[in-house]
């Protein structure tokens, strides 16, 4: 057998063995990984409203119990109304409600934004006044660690708390990420609508600003309901949204 043939045979055999091992690892562990990802998303929903502490560690069961106790996931239509189970319009949006003692304390919008290297997934929680941001979290992204990747760090996310998505006259302005510190980079009257940017991550900030604006615009009808009434009317048999998978 010539050397060339031997080399090709060896390479083929190696590839087959390696791919078999990888397939086994990937499929064998998939169930565990899915479970972890699910708990992680539930944890991020709870984290966006400050229901779990970012410095403490929780077991999967604790997270699931807290989620079951406080979070209600409903489906809203384009007019911002909560859909009942028998209505089935084409365009629906999931919305999470944080409830304490039977009353809605916060509403939580799932975030799916463009980033520099891939999509950024997270949650944006708002208070029932329909304007004040209660928290922002990111559970999945592909930004550069140490630069854009800082969006998952506490110092960045904490900046969102207390910011406003509408101005004093009640007009929608969204929330943006400043280039640098807000107090230097943004006009005085716009400061309640901006958070400090990350140095070295201008593009991530730009895309996330655009993404958040799009999402907040889509959910604006919901926010208007909250602004006018401080609550959403839930129909008797609200259409429960599919749990995140």
């Amino acid at each position, binding site marked *: 057998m010539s*050397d060339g043939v*031997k*080399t090709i045979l*060896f*390479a083929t055999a*190696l*590839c087959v063995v*390696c791919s078999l*091992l*990888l397939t086994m*690892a*990937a499929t064998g*562990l998939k169930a*565990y*990984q899915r479970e*972890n*990802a699910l*708990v*992680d998303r539930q944890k991020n929903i709870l984290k966006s409203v400050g229901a779990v502490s970012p410095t403490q*560690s929780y077991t999967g069961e604790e997270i699931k119990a807290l989620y079951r106790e406080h979070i209600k996931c409903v489906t809203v239509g384009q007019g911002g109304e909560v859909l009942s189970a028998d209505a089935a319009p084409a365009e629906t949006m999931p919305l999470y409600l944080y409830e304490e003692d039977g009353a809605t304390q916060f509403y939580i919008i799932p975030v799916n934004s463009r980033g520099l290297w891939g999509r950024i997934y997270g949650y944006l929680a708002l208070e029932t006044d329909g304007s004040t941001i209660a928290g922002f979290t990111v559970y999945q992204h592909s930004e550069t*660690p*140490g630069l854009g*990747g800082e969006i998952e760090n506490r110092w960045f996310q904490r900046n969102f708390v207390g910011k406003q998505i509408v101005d004093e006259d009640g007009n929608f302005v969204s929330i943006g990420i400043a280039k640098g510190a807000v107090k230097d980079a943004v006009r005085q009257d716009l400061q309640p609508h901006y958070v400090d940017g990350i140095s070295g991550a201008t593009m991530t900030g730009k895309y996330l600003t655009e993404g958040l604006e799009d999402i907040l615009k889509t959910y604006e009808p919901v926010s208007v309901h909250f602004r006018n009434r401080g609550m959403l009317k839930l129909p008797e048999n609200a259409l429960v949204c599919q749990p995140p998978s």
Partner: protein
Amino acid sequence: MSTAVVKRITRSETYRTVADALWQKNPISKQVLGICSALAVTVQMNTAIVMALALTFVVAFSNLIISLMRNVIPRNIRIIVEVAVIATLVIIADEVLKAFLYDISKQLSVFVGLIITNCIVMGRAETCAMSNPPYVAFVDGLANGIGYGSVLVGVAFFRELLGSGSLLGFQLVPDVFYEWGYMDMGLMLLAPGAFIVIGLFVWLEHALLKNQA
């Protein structure tokens, strides 16, 4: 222990391999390899420990597997074969972390995947596994992983203690110190802090080795 036994141990090949990897030729503090990940994952002790375990697993088993195949690997594609073996092991390690240590795996982010490009793993495969029997290669891999890990955990110890006032996530600096005006050293949490601490480790090792000689 009698001196004869000590002598027999210290003269054995295994002892030399282990001592070299842990001390005289330590991958980080003497050969200055694997610095990228050492900067990135040493903000906290627990990420450093998990990273050290992952790398030790990869380098030990890649050495073992490559050494077992060393007589049949065609010379002209040996680098590709080494990388394929290493990459497979790294992805298995990454999948296991995602399944059982999800939070830590999220913190380590790309750095587990980047073990593939860690010079230590490739270097041991080329210089040791290709020319030594499986037992020697495995011990060499294990020792190099531990040598890398020991510096990693050492650096993380100082960075977490000085930068966050805690170790393994447990707060060590009492709250009352903060009330008195003690402040954590923010520099330690940033990459330059790691550079300085690793630099000090390199200096210490060189100084101690000079004294021995």
